[in-house]
């Protein structure tokens, strides 16, 4: 199947198309942070060419887990920026602190030094305002809830009124509409990950954080989901930060690849993939893709 978005099929449900950016034929709803801070920056900025547009800024962030023998440094002076609406990928060796960094961006942990903000808003505030979506490595779906009710869980937890039209839209864009009333045990691994992704998008977050969401899947399913993710992120206009071990996945998905060194995690290199998201399927089969992967692998090896 083609994973490209139809022009009219994925406008934000429940009203006219949001006044956002158009990428190819995809109508991108305006991210909420930009809606609320309309004067803060040019809403038309393309993710790949942010210039002075609003960004997700991680600036000199450090973090250590408290322990009996002092803090165990997990993140050390990490800085990078990602344009709002962009897709950043963190790659690095196992245990280097990628997931910790993601939790810091989510506001689930507080940095011991440095600052993080999305278009000027701190993560804790974003989280309190339910503007952060997080898909964990383990989908963690609730077996007693249907697919639809799993997606609706954030509304229950956050005491928000259920947005049925948006949930319908999420079911649609994750190709789960026919499975809405099924239980998680009836789904394949890839479908479960898509439910987790839809659940992360339920509160229309401004920033979507994905912690190796496709790590346990086979290569073919993973590739399919990668393209779906690209489409969904474009469709929702959400800023996305993803952790992966796969260099191929990083190059395929990212506008910006942040290469991290071993623990405590430091930024070793950043790599910009200046290929439009709609062209990534073709990119995968190109020599350019292989060259980019090589470049990132070299950076990863050098970081060790």
């Amino acid at each position: 199947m083609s994973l490209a978005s139809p022009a009219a099929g994925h406008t934000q449900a429940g009203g006219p198309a949001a006044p956002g950016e158009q990428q190819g034929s995809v109508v991108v709803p305006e991210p909420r942070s930009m809606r609320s801070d309309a004067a803060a920056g040019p809403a038309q900025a393309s993710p790949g060419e942010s210039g002075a547009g609003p960004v997700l800024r991680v600036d000199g962030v450090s973090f250590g887990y408290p322990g009996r023998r002092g803090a165990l440094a997990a993140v050390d002076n990490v800085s990078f920026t990602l344009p709002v609406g962009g897709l950043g990928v963190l790659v690095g060796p196992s245990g280097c602190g990628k997931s910790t960094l993601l939790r810091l961006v989510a506001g689930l942990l507080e940095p011991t030094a440095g600052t993080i903000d999305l278009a000027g808003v701190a993560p804790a505030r974003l989280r309190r305002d339910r503007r952060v979506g997080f898909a964990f490595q383990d989908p963690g779906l609730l077996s007693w809830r249907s697919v639809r009710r799993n997606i609706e869980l954030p509304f229950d937890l956050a005491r928000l009124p259920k947005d049925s039209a948006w949930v319908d839209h999420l079911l649609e864009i994750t190709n789960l509409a026919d499975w809405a009333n099924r239980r998680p045990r009836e789904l394949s691994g890839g479908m479960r990950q898509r439910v987790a992704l839809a659940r992360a998008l339920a509160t229309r977050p401004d920033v979507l954080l994905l912690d190796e969401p496709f790590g346990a899947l086979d290569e073919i399913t993973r590739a399919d989901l990668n393209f779906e993710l690209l489409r969904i992120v474009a469709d929702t206009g959400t800023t996305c930060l993803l952790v992966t071990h796969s260099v191929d996945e990083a190059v395929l998905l990212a506008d910006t690849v942040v290469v991290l060194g071993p623990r405590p995690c430091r930024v070793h290199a950043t790599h910009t993939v200046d290929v439009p998201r709609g062209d990534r399927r073709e990119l995968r089969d190109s020599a350019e893709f292989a060259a980019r992967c090589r470049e990132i692998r070299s950076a990863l090896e050098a970081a060790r």
Partner: protein
Amino acid sequence: MTATATTAAPTAATAAPTPASVPAPVPAGGATTRSRLATGAARPTLPVRVLVAAAAIVALPALWAALAATGWLGPGLIGPADTIRALHDQWSMIWWNARPTLTATVLGAAILLGVTAVGVIAVAVVPALTPALGGTSVVVGSLPLIALTPALALVITRGQTLVTTVTVLSGLVPVAAMIAGTAQAAARGRDELGALYSAGRLRWWWHVGFWNSVPVIDLGLRAMLPACFVGTIVAEWSGATGTRGLGQVMVNALFSYQPEVLWAALLLAALAALALFGLAAGLMLPLRRRTR
């Protein structure tokens, strides 16, 4: 490579499931059938399970009958047929004695169910209570109930109250362990999803934690109800009751050498304990099904 490449895709294609990640389309009801088959691969079918359970139930009396028939263990071991006959002949006496035993068990179990309900919510809201519960269960579990009952008789008048107290004490260990277990089960995922959506402990428990705890509650109740019954009988053995009680019948039958009556009382006690186990399993069945 241009952005227009994406526009060429037909609208219908997007709605179709990804072949690699979505199971092949099946007719209505087909998916359910297939998932049942997939589940069935790991779990025997219902008839097989019923057959295995029936075989297990029949095996024990058969072993009992075979052992009694050999006479190896002397005339004190009465076979199932003679035991059932004795139960039938002495029914009015045994039932008269069994009623206070069952009443104390049901009363004790009801108190413990109340303790469970309050405890499960309490540890979900205040997890710091969990270690205290663990400590209590260790202390209560280490007390020898047979030795404790006479001591309690010094403070509580012998009779129904004392029997019920010992019943509650005997069921408290599985209940405390269950409550501590539910605290852990309920907290699973709260640091991530719960924190992400700033869900309060009670809200989390209501939507997620309770359901996570269902397997623990299920096991706990199955252990608690028969334990209550054993506690009641132990209390009666050690003289907690005045004159009535199934435990009292057992003791009297032992000292007056009426092995048929002793075995008949034992059979009734076993059936009652099984019924309580079944009750616990039946009560939890809808929740178990939902969380499976």
